[in-house]
């Protein structure tokens, strides 16, 4: 599976996501250029969009499916990589946290997460209000456009088109299929914790196992629950 320059089979496929709308190929480019955080791309939605746009009767449908499956699988793996602490090392934190500080921070995060749930309800309850369209044009000469905002917008719009280098991605050596099989087998005996499932695995395999679990959850085979931050992750077979 590669994210390299691909055939043109997917050139007509466009996506409409919360974080991005436009050609699918550019979405890949943005992710590779780190303009879009892979973590924010809802892969399940992406797959749904592809499936709904799929025309099995078209001449290149096989080619399209192959291209999409390849790039989507690579996205899953890329996404799993963001779960490595090592990947984050250069970013957010300089110094290791004491357990006390970490507890403080997690409590803060838990509050924010509850705040986010509250906001979701507020947005939903207020959706469907459309404002009046009977607006008057602003008086001439009163508008302001910031030149620096224009420069930024130019950069953003014009740099989107360049295909990013992919060399730094390196080879990926584990297969999702193997891990999916492993998870299914473990689940045959009932719910299993992520901890138990990945005992003995190296970091790469643990992360990819997580990606595999996510894929299975997205396909509806598995339910993943983690009621609280830092709480145990439990995988259960879906009913």
């Amino acid at each position, binding site marked *: 599976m590669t994210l390299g320059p691909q055939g043109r089979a997917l050139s007509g496929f466009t996506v409409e996501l919360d974080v991005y709308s436009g*050609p699918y190929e550019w979405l890949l480019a943005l992710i590779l250029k780190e303009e879009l955080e892979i973590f924010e791309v809802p892969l399940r939605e992406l797959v749904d969009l592809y499936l709904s746009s799929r025309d099995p009767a078209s001449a290149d449908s096989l080619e399209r499916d192959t291209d999409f499956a390849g790039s989507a699988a690579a996205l899953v793996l890329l996404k799993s990589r963001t779960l490595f602490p090592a990947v984050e090392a250069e970013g957010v934190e300089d110094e290791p946290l004491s357990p006390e500080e970490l507890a403080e921070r997690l409590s803060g995060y838990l509050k924010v997460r509850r705040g986010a749930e509250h906001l979701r309800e507020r947005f939903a309850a207020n959706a469907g*209000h459309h404002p009046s369209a009977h607006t008057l044009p602003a008086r001439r000469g*009163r*508008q302001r456009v910031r030149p620096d905002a224009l420069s*930024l917008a*130019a950069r953003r719009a*014009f740099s989107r088109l360049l295909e990013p280098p992919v060399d730094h991605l390196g080879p990926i050596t584990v297969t999702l299929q193997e891990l999916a099989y492993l998870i299914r087998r473990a689940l045959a005996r009932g719910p299993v914790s992520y901890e138990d499932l990945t005992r003995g695995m190296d970091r790469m395999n643990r992360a990819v196992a997580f990606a595999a679990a996510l894929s299975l959850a997205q396909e509806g085979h598995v339910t993943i629950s983690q009621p609280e931050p830092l709480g145990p992750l439990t995988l259960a077979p879906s009913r």
Partner: protein
Amino acid sequence: MSEPRPEQLIEAVLLVSPRPIGNADLRSATGLSEDQTSAALVTLLERYSPRTSGIVLREVAGGYLLSTNPSCSAAVERFREEARPAPLSGAAHEALACVLYLGPLTRAGISRVRGVNSDAVVRNLIERGLLAEVGADREAPGSPALLAVTDEFLAATGASSTADFPALEELVSPEELARVRDRLLTTTGSGEPPPAEGPSYEGSPY
């Protein structure tokens, strides 16, 4: 929530249309029958009558239109003088940057560079007087209009001419620039229009 009554549906649709809406369009949006629509319009013409309301329902150009009561025009005009213009969205800035640096450009050209259909953004910018049609691209099928930035745009940015902006070469790499130019020159390959603008609360955000 209980089912809205016919006049509620019609009044909601009237609020979001700046142009008169014909009877048939009202019916197709609301799903009401001809009789229901007529009856609701009678109720609404009474409710939004110039005698009692600051918002009036008028029958114009074969359709129905809400507008302000002329008796209130002084207040409306004063509000327009004093109101702060709505800020521009990120999409609007991008469309302006495309036209400023690559223009004059057709609507399709802007959409091609941005990768999303930009018609709604462009309409908003024309209404604001920041973009204007300055001719037509005779080489393209249908001779679509070419857009350029306006004097109003220059005034809004505090620039005296388009030369006052940083050169494109300072903003993007030569490779990026070449890609953008390529993109502009290719005739729309698939014939498909780019996707509509994403959920960006364009223009009037609420």
